[in-house]
């Protein structure tokens, strides 16, 4: 193994990280610049992903691994020219919903095509019915951009910009973000060119083979150590109007692991369906974090994680099923897979957690006609781990951040009245589940607000493992106590606010085995009330 190849591999990883930072610095939507809902990567001539920025979220990262191949086919490699930049938001070829815009830039070195940079970001609005589950087909969910040229030999496609400008509620932010995506690839491109010059290389093919082969080998080595077995798990979640059952079987082979989703519910009439690319992304993430976490993410390390799902299930929904909130079901896939994996590899995976990000979007209207869209990302608690408590209000499996309250309040006329931990929401156990959080939001004076809830785990909270109890369920209410389902769109009456309680993670192991000092600490810090401590752990002050 040559020292030089190792060095160049590290260099590629640092290039994509820098690419991601450029996107954050130049983006407009709070989802990108504050929350990091993005990904950035480099691909070889054949479209194989070689490195991905760790900044970003698995749904993007792993879904984008397949995206560049679609661009190569649709654009036609022979027609690609220096100065080109391509774009799409196709849910089935990009990262699962129309709100994610993917931009791919071909890299030319001394006149020949040597690879691609790609990046994805979640924009605040793409038209249609607005970000929410209530579309009944993808056509209602917004403007669809097929794979096409955003910049053609250095010339920006003004037709596309004009189309976008009239098809979104927040044209400045969305168009600004597309420029930011192009800028981010540009930064990667400059740096890759410098590396090729420095090492006197004309392409990255040999390096690509080295990266893909070494990563594949290391992942297979980790898989080879597993017992050969097959195990199944099902998990029922809220769905939209009717519950959804997710079923996964995990089977280990000498050189790969297969996850199959046979038995999973059919697609839903509302927009919580998941394009297969996104299902693969989160199933592979679940296996990778449990089995081979230290191998860098690329085409070679992902290949041994194989995923299948019958057509016409909610995890393999085809066009034109609505998919806007594909993350609500998609984020629950790791918990589904963990339930099966736990039977093959005990004491490794956590109990169920909040899973889906607790996102909501609000539309605000001023008396003078002013309109504003505000999107926030928030997290519940993660499941307790075999030797550690769950994490309080922390995203898992998603990798995004929350937006600062102050930044959100600058983005539109919204007031966040509360955002803090939710005591007693972590499932009891030898290890306690992570706490969810409380939020309370309303419009600024002079504005009306429509609220779009995009939650889960209301009727089906996170289950504990090995005797641990379940986490607290989701609550969506108006300040007068009116209750709403986890997925809903409603107007907030004047003078009222929306009160939210986000779910906690499940506990691990029997509560009776919890260290009483840990219980005392939880009481002192207010993570659990004295009442709950007494009830769940038999604790007395």
């Amino acid at each position, binding site marked *: 193994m040559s*020292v030089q190849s*190792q*060095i160049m591999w*590290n260099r590629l990883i*640092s290039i994509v990280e*820098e690419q991601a*930072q450029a996107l*954050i*610095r*130049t*983006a*407009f939507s*709070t989802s990108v*610049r504050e929350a990091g809902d993005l990904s950035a990567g480099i691909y070889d001539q054949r479209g194989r992903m070689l490195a991905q920025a760790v900044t970003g979220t698995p749904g993007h990262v792993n879904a984008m691994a397949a995206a560049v191949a679609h661009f190569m086919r649709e654009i036609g490699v022979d027609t690609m020219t220096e100065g080109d930049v391509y774009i799409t938001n196709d849910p089935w070829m990009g990262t699962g919903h129309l709100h994610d815009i993917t931009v791919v830039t071909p890299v030319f070195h001394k006149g020949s095509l040597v690879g691609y940079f790609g990046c994805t970001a979640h924009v605040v609005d793409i038209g249609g019915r607005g970000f929410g589950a209530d579309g009944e087909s993808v056509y209602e969910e917004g403007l669809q951009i097929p794979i096409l040229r955003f910049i053609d030999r250095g010339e920006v496609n003004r037709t596309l910009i004009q189309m976008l400008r009239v098809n979104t509620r927040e044209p*400045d932010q969305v168009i*600004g973000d597309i420029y930011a995506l*192009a*800028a981010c690839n*540009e*930064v990667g491109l400059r*740096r890759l060119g410098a590396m090729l010059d*420095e090492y006197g290389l004309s392409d990255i093919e040999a390096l690509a083979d080295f990266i893909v082969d070494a*990563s594949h080998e*290391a992942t297979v080595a980790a898989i080879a150590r597993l017992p050969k077995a097959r195990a199944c798990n099902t998990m029922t979640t809220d769905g939209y109007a009717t519950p959804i059952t997710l079923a996964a079987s995990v089977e280990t082979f000498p050189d790969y692991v297969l996850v199959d989703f046979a038995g999973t519910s059919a697609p839903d009439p509302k927009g919580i369906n998941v394009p297969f690319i996104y299902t693969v992304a989160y199933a592979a993430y679940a296996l990778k*974090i*449990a089995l081979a*976490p*230290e*191998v*860098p993410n690329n085409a070679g390390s992902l290949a041994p994680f194989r995923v299948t799902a019958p057509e016409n299930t909610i995890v393999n929904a085809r066009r034109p099923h609505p998919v806007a909130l594909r993350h609500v079901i998609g984020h629950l896939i790791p918990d589904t897979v963990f339930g099966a994996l736990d039977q093959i590899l005990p004491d*490794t995976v*956590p109990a169920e957690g909040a899973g889906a990000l607790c996102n909501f979007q609000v539309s605000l209207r001023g008396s003078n006609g002013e309109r504003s869209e505000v999107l926030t990302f*928030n*997290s519940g608690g993660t499941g307790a781990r075999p*030797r*550690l408590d769950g*994490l*309080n*209000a*922390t*995203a898992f499996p998603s*990798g995004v*951040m*929350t937006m*600062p*309250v*102050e*930044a959100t309040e600058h983005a539109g006329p919204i007031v966040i*009245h*509360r*955002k*803090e*931990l939710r005591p007693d929401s972590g499932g009891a156990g030898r290890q306690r589940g992570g706490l969810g*959080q409380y939020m*309370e939001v309303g419009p*600024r004076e002079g504005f009306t607000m429509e609220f779009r809830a995009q939650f889960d785990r209301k009727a089906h909270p996170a289950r504990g493992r090995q005797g641990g109890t379940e986490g607290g369920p989701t609550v969506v209410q108006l300040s007068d106590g009116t209750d709403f389902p986890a997925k809903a769109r409603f107007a907030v009456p004047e003078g009222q606010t929306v009160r939210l309680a986000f779910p906690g993670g499940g506990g691990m192991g029997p509560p009776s085995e919890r260290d009483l000092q840990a219980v005392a600490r939880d009481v*002192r*810090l*207010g*993570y659990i009330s004295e009442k709950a401590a007494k009830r769940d752990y038999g604790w007395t002050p």
Partner: protein
Amino acid sequence: MTEEANLGVDIGGTFTDVVLETGGRLHSTKVLTTYAAPEDAILDGMRQVCAKAGLSPSALTRIIHGTTLATNALIERRGARTALVTTEGFRDVIEMRTESRFEQYDLNIVLPEPLIPRDARFTLRERVDAGGNILTPLDRTEVEALADRLEGFDSIAVGFLHSYLRPDHERLVREVLADRLPTLSVSLSSDVSPQMREYERFNTTCANAYVKPMMESYLGRLRERLAHEGAACPIFLMHSGGGIVSIETAAQFPVRLVESGPAGGAIFAADVARRHNLDRVLSFDMGGTTAKICLIRDGQPKTARVFEVARSTRFKKGSGMPISIPVIDMVEIGAGGGSLAHVDSMRQIRVGPESAGSEPGPAAYGRGGLRPAVSDADLILGRLDPDNFAGGTILLHPDRSEQALVAEVGGHLGMDAVQAAFGVSEVVDENMANAARVHAVENGQDLSDYTMIAFGGAAPLHAGRLCEKLGITRLLVPPGAGVGSAIGFLRAPYAFEATRSVYMRLDAFDGALARTILADLSEEAAGFVRSCDPHADVRTDAKVYMRYKGQGWEIPVALDGDLAAAPTADALGHRFALGYAALFGRAVEGLPVEITVWAVNAATPLAPTVPTPETRPAGDVEGTPRRLFDPVTGAWADGRTLPRERLTDGMVAQGPLAVTEAETTVIVPRGFTVTGRADGVLDIRRTS
């Protein structure tokens, strides 16, 4: 007028460095840091250098001090009993952080503990909105009721939402506490860090409150003890932004002292840069545990507004806590002489951030260290003298290094000790080169026209290779590199930066308001500087941070000359567009531009530097033969070695070469030529 005698003191993790400059000469010493009473080491060091200079402490005219004490208190969680008072509904901001995991692929991740635990965080009913309007007024009687619950604490941090726009409520809390609990130390977020984003602002305020009683007491003791020794001269503190402030300001905002040591290093490099008339410099400071890299343009280190302290997990970005204060913008990575190497499951060599420290130290020290460190690799590659390391105080054992390299690295990869050492050395050099490249590109700079200035114990061994990797063709290694930070303190100006968040769109630009803001900030910043020296000639430097409306991050736009006196929307817009395109390829069409933060830095002018005279070739020095490993060819080469003293002004020698001195070795790669300069600097240039 009596002769100036300035004392620079840098308290580091292991050593306290003391430098006395008087009559154009430097006298320096290193004494072990005395954790229990850090002032002991200072007094000891002061006596030593005063004796060397034949001077009494009463003859000192100025003492300038920098310290990692505040940083260490944050890392080791040894601060005051601190409470946070915050807006109702937001008790957990510092605990919930960004609600993300800093490592995506670790099921057993442990998040950093908040600096102030939940049971010491209190809330008050009050609210200011994003427009700076009061939504819920703060009731004084509620503050008074809360005061009764705060009696057991030593220090209070106050952080309310949007207080950077409207500090009234935070000030009311201070007023009530001053009344009820006058001995309590209080830090307001609107004073400590008046910037948008509550997590960073609150955390910075908590950090300030956490170290404030300790730093106040330490600085008070220090002043007394020094006075007792006869050193009654004024004492100043180096801050992380690269300037010096009065001991009173330092006690008020001790969080600004975090990273003051590395800041001194950057000032040291900037001084060398000015002496040699270099406008683009990369300063490279590599010690035992970390390497620090900083860009210096036109003799000034670059500054930034946020950095992360106390990273809990392998220096991983996000595992520490953000501090938003003016800082010298540098990257610090876990790469030093003591950084340990291993082979990971991908059969890749990894180096650092774990360090062997001074106990047990690298395997070569023979003190029980069994894992190979970067210094072990340097020894095996012929760069270090086994008999002359650290002035001969530590005898090195090459056989131990070989064993460790083979056992932990080579054995796994089918490499012998030399190949393993080569791998370790290349990996650490590439890590540092990557950090430098990322840092440069973040700042829109191309390093190929930069000169590197290297200091710190391990830097001279690796700087040459780093230059090759970065395409840098000139490298300066100044004398006194081991105490560079303390020397830097003596070169720092009195400086203070005042900032304010006021949003202003260019299409609604208010020239009168802009002038008022800048004038107020200038007065505030200059006031701090005058508190150090009432007669100082104070210069102010204004800049604004600008972005397209809707973006979350800004780029700085300098206001010089006319623009500072009478800013106009057109001129600002033009400068912004140029700066943006330089960083990110193209400006965005048709979007409004806004100013978010206004900043004025007030500073005394730097002491005029004496340019180092141009060198006249005085002759060649040969040295004696020595085998050196050449990382470019990956093979041994016949090099030379000579002691540093022989490279006097104008003396020239060719690489591959090892220049030895008491503390370290300077490696001059093949194809480079070294020339001694009048100020003792080794001037190394690529010649082929």
